[in-house]
């Protein structure tokens, strides 16, 4: 096993897929000489040439729509939105074209498109550069949604996403890019729709994804000191959802906290809470509880941003409250 950063893991995964399948192309701003702002496509232009690394103008709607057209013609474009917040200017090709094309054509068409985007708070990037928007995508049938937390997962999942015949939104947390972790030497895939228990526990299930996985693990360590044994379930993929993994864990612990970095109102946490409540009501010893960002715009000042989104101590607090401790 080698140790590489999450950004390198994504780069490796994409590179392997580009080598494997000539239909895989990269589309987005600054992917060429710069290799993208987070260095995800570094070296691709030299290795694969401008025919496979399409460095675009600042025209998100145009180039995402273009990628949809290319996907309909059999290409497998991987689009980068420089920040997920900019999906605001590419929403139509994502939600009304890519997501719906297969259904509207009665299953004639596949749209094997990946839209990658960095997301997340904590970098003091203020209101228009710090959002977690995974929930918006989960509300649009036709899209799959992936939010990896580790280098190993990121690599295996980006490969699965590229091979998947559906449009996949692949959300990378900016503050995870630099994390170095062990990644298998040999080729591997992590199928979409498989959650992963990142820490086993018996008292409570913390369901989460992306950067909050680490906060949940930190919280779990903290809780362990007080005799609370928390299980941390990293969903990895939000759509399709690994319900079996959730069910299993809930039936074991009977208590659930859902944690996400995006704002709480209408966040995916609500969806999970509702499903668990509807289907596992009798298993629950306590109400499913959510820990999520406040219903406000991402603020700039560090004092405010730190108060905006969940930190390990918020998780600890929520767990204790749920368990009446």
């Amino acid at each position, binding site marked *: 096993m080698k140790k590489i950063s999450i950004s390198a893991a994504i780069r490796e995964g994409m590179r392997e897929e580009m080598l494997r399948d000539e239909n895989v192309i990269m589309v987005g701003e600054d992917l060429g000489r710069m290799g993208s702002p987070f260095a995800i496509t570094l070296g691709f232009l030299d290795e694969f040439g401008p025919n496979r690394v399409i460095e675009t103008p600042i025209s998100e709607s145009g180039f995402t*729509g273009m990628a949809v*057209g290319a996907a309909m*013609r059999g290409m497998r474009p991987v689009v980068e939105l420089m920040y997920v917040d900019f999906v605001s200017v590419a929403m139509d090709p994502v939600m009304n074209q890519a997501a719906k094309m*297969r*259904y509207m054509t009665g299953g004639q068409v596949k749209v094997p498109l990946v839209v990658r985007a960095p997301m997340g708070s904590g970098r003091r990037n203020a209101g228009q550069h710090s959002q977690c928007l995974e929930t918006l995508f989960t509300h649009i049938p036709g899209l799959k949604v992936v939010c990896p937390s580790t280098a190993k997962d990121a690599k295996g999942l980006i490969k699965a996403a590229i091979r998947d015949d*559906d449009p996949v939104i692949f959300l990378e947390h900016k503050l995870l890019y630099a994390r170095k972790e062990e990644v298998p030497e040999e080729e591997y895939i992590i199928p979409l729709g498989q959650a992963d228990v990142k820490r086993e526990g018996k008292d409570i299930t913390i369901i989460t994804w992306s950067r909050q996985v680490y906060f949940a693990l930190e919280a779990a360590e903290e809780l362990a000191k007080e005799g609370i044994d928390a299980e941390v379930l990293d969903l990895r993929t939000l759509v*399709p959802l690994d319900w079996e993994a959730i069910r299993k864990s809930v039936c074991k612990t009977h208590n659930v906290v859902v944690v996400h970095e995006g704002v709480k109102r209408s966040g995916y946490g609500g969806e999970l809470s509702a499903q668990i409540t509807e289907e596992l009501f009798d298993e629950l010893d306590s109400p499913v509880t959510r820990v999520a960002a406040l219903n406000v715009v991402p603020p700039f000042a560090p004092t405010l941003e730190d108060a905006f989104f969940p930190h390990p101590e918020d998780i600890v607090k929520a767990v204790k409250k749920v368990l009446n401790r």
Partner: protein
Amino acid sequence: MENKKYSKEMLLGMYEMMLRIRKFELRLTEYFTKGMLYGNIHTSIGQEAVAVGVCAALEKTDYMTSTHRGHGHSLAKGARSDIMMAELFGRETGYCRGKGGSMHVTDVSLGILGSNGIVGAGIPIATGSGLTSKIKGTKEVTVAFFGDSASNQGTFHESINMAAAWKLPVVYLCENNNYGVSVNIHTVTNTETIAERAVAYNIPGVTVDGNNPLEVYEAVKKAVDRAREGKGPSIVECMTWRMRGHYEGDPATYRDKKITEEWAKKDPIENFKKYLIEEGYDEKELQAIEEAMEDEIEAAIQFALDSPFPDPSEVTTDVYACDNERSVAR
């Protein structure tokens, strides 16, 4: 008797296709009035020469994206009237198995990369098709159909800019019927034509009589050849008129009667028929074509009406290509 420039096959083929579209859509208006057609129906009655002239300049292997007003484009590109009719009636035998309807007719095998309900959304999709041909080094050309008013969408600008910068083999085909629903294009745009916007991308732009299929054909042929030779995109603007409302049910009272009457005289099908007769074609032959089209569309209607609606259980299929059931379930 054979026209020097155009073969009999081509001319009569154009005539036939214009009639196919006209008769197809006239039946739509009839069934809409009867309350037997669902959704919004945007006819292209009066605009047939554009679709036919454009597609005459295309190879079977070429591609196009269409709009909300797309029946003519798809028929001209080779779609079958019966399967399309079935789709418009929401039947399981339709192109989209009843899931798409009028605004989503698609047949990728015929190069029809979808009609579209979002104004301007087909333009980048066509651009992506052009990009694909360029990457693959294949020779297909893609036509992006759009209306005059769609040219005010950002996607028009973003797409043509990219296609121009990268010399993509795309023809941007503006059907200028002077209106976006009730809005006269000149009240919301400062140029005389749409084609002159080509200057902003340093590509050719021409404006032609969209009610003359041969004039459309010539202009598009030139743009297609250029694209196929790797010289990049063009804008071709076809001036035309929709002879009915924006959609069925729209009395189109926002348009000046006088202008409507003037355009009525420019009916592309009648005028083309006159032209063919002048060129020495036999009226009876033309009559036979018309009757054949009448019969074809009648059969299409019958096919549609005889076809079953999709089973309600089909509601959850086709959302995803992989792992559909699980991805839809929760």
